[in-house]
């Protein structure tokens, strides 16, 4: 058994802000650092983690069969071909939602924790049963949000629920950051979001078309030494999770020209 297994829930409240993409990229990035990592798709209603990892055709058994004890855990785990340190435990049939209880979730995660250093749980959107089941099995959490009012509000709600459940630490990832829009003050800044949510920032991910291209292919960006902006962001998040001290990219300080300096002056808070 790995006694120091980190069990991390990746959640957001709102759907479509990048939970599954973060789970896939973080899973690959951690595995590339040599730690035994498993990603668990807890979104039983609408599973997609298999698709983003390009493993959808290799699923034989799922978490459902493991819980029913009709197969062993290692039969259900799908090992990533290029990155064998990473395994996926696929979500079962959507009907699992009807009977799955927090106990079941804890049982599954307990089994995974014996074999892996990291268990990343891809949480379903919303704050209903699926979320509650996932929370019951986790120790720490990463909240992912985008700099939009609806996503930040939902994230706040989820943070409140995680706090009441004693989940610690809870860290923040800010996704789809557009430095130009922040510069012209047409997007909430990184500081705005961290101030409002009062969470430590684990990292930010720049808006990047490569993310869409990589999901089309089922090859997460972190699979290669990719120089695309988002790929670097995901890799940095994985390193910080491992305790490395990687400085944050400050989107507001990216430019050094006179124009950038002027824009920064214009958005300095005076009072």
């Amino acid at each position, binding site marked *: 058994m790995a006694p120091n297994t980190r069990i991390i829930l990746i959640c957001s409240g709102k759907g479509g802000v990048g939970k599954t993409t973060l789970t896939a990229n973080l899973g690959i990035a951690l595995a590339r650092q040599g730690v035994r990592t498993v990603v668990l798709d807890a979104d039983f209603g609408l599973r997609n983690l298999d698709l983003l990892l390009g493993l959808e055709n290799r699923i034989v058994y799922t978490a459902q069969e493991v819980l029913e004890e009709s197969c062993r855990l290692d039969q259900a785990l799908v090992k990533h071909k290029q990155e064998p340190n990473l395994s996926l435990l696929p979500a079962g049939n959507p009907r699992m939602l009807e009977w799955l209880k927090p106990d079941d979730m804890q049982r599954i995660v307990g089994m995974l924790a014996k074999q892996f250093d990291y268990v990343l749980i891809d949480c379903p959107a919303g704050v209903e049963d699926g979320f509650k089941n996932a929370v019951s099995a986790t120790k720490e959490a990463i909240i992912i949000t985008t700099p*939009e009012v609806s996503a930040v509000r939902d994230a706040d709600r989820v943070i409140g629920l995680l706090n009441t459940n004693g989940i610690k630490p809870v860290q923040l990832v800010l996704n789809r950051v557009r430095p130009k829009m922040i510069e012209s003050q047409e997007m909430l800044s990184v500081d705005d979001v961290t101030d*409002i949510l009062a969470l430590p920032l684990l990292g930010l991910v720049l808006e990047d078309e490569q993310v869409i291209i990589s999901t089309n292919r089922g090859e997460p960006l972190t699979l290669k030494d990719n120089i695309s902006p988002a790929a670097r962001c995901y890799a940095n998040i994985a390193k910080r999770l491992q305790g490395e001290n990687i400085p944050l990219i400050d989107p507001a300080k990216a430019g050094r020209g006179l124009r950038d300096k002027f824009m920064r002056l214009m958005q300095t808070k005076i009072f």
Partner: protein
Amino acid sequence: MTLRDILNKLLGRQQASATTARERLQLVLAHDRSDLSPELLDQMKLEILEVVAKYVEIDMDEGAVSLETEDRMTALVANLPIKRTLKAKKQDDEQSS
């Protein structure tokens, strides 16, 4: 408020949308976190004003009761300018009559 906000105000332009987003979020989150609906808050505001009005005369137009949050702590903040105490008011009324 930023330099840009001040410039926009001077020129009568709309403030930057990020500022609007920040303000709207702070307000809505204060309500979400305290689980108080705007109606309940209004009702509470009226009752607080009634109680305070028993003791001092307050400026009803300038007064404000609002929820503010900082670091996930929500506080009920009441800013009620006192015109004069009721004692002083009584004396004034007696003098004028």
